[in-house]
């Protein structure tokens, strides 16, 4: 899932620590919401929502309908600004590869979104359904379940889900740290090669001069 480049959402800035927009961004987003709210109900119905999401992202129709059902928590067929704002934060965190950070910061909200049946428990089915949005990795889930001695079909309550988000966030940070170290090693290696090449060139020039005499 990608946010369309140079669209309005693409220009919004998501804070990397709290995974939320600033007040100014929210103000701009509210203006945008009011432009789309043509019926002046402070809501978007499913048609407007569908066309909005199909314009700003590359999601398929089935996925857009799933997102709408997920956000329409009270089943009225419309979504308000709060849900719209949360959706924008989710889209931007996905765009910026901050899904794990977002789930960690807003685990309660994500849990309630994934718990579409209101059973206070979510399982691998829920994770699989919304993987395109939250990027919940299969291998992470398996590792998590294995680490806690749980079976794959185990359904998590909120506390267990919270622990999973901490676990996933730690994994992400470890991955980022390894990548930074790798990049630093590459840089160091490149600079070493450059130095060596330079020294060889200097020695050659000196040698040629000597021979030339």
């Amino acid at each position: 899932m990608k946010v369309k480049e140079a669209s309005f959402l693409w220009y919004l800035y998501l804070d990397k620590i709290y995974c939320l927009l600033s007040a100014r961004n929210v103000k701009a987003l509210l203006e945008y919401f009011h432009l789309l709210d043509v019926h002046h109900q402070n809501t978007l119905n499913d048609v407007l929502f569908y066309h909005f999401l199909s314009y700003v992202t590359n999601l398929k129709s089935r996925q857009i309908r799933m997102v709408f059902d997920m956000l329409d928590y009270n089943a009225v067929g419309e979504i308000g600004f709060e849900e719209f704002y949360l959706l924008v934060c989710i889209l931007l965190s996905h765009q910026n590869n901050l899904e794990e950070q977002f789930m960690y910061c807003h685990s309660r909200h994500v849990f309630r979104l994934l718990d579409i049946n209101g059973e206070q428990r979510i399982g691998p089915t829920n994770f699989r359904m919304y993987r395109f949005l939250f990027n919940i990795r299969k291998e992470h889930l398996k590792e998590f379940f294995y680490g806690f001695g749980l079976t794959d079909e185990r359904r998590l309550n909120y506390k267990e889900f919270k622990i999973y988000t901490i676990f996933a966030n730690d994994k992400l940070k470890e991955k980022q740290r390894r990548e930074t170290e790798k990049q630093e090693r590459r840089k160091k290696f490149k600079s070493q090669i450059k130095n060596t090449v330079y020294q060889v060139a200097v020695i050659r020039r000196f040698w040629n001069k000597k021979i030339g005499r």
Partner: protein
Amino acid sequence: MKSRSSAWRPPAGRRTRPSPFWSVTPAFPEAGSTWVRWGRTMEEEPFKASSDHRNLGQASGHDGLPDGGIQATLSQPGLSTQLSEVRGSSDQNHGTGHETRGDSQQGLLEDGDKSISQRDKDSSKPEDLDQHTLLDLEPPRSSTQGIWLAELDSESGNEHFSESLSSTLEQAGFRLYLAEQQKKLPLPLRELMETEALEILTKALKSYRSKIGENHFLTQELQRSVEELQRRKRLLWKSQ
């Protein structure tokens, strides 16, 4: 499509849930209040204006751009402070003027309160006021103004006075511009939003027409909005 007139049924097995979102949406302030920063690039490079104003507005304690009212009261002490700075430290670098202005502004607010109350008490004897306190006050409208101006002429010179006046006028104009901008979104952003909304709503209008027909009141509402946006776009193009 689910119209307002027909009842919408949730998918089978769906239960309503308590709202998960009440704590996520920030209680953003009313229009015209502090703008922090916005935009992908502008988050890294805040407004130059806001950085200038941050120095002026630091004394007010606001994080972003302060209200125009506060700016108005600060402007006069700012003018007087500039003059005192010039008088006091003529060999100071111009680049540090902003910082010193900012620091002295902070002290000024405290002094300003004192000096205003003092002015109320000693309104009959303005000449007895301390020279520093005189500078802290808003420019007096009566005889003391002549004294104040005379002092300026004698000590700082006409050049500095005219410079500071012109800068005050610029600041006043700029403040009005900023106060207006605080309430409105920037024009390029507004244009981008309206263009995008127009495209989305045009497609939605086609869906409305195909699903519920052209004569439905929802279709007509949407059509009116689309026409309004098209009209605004045409006006914008004409003005450019």
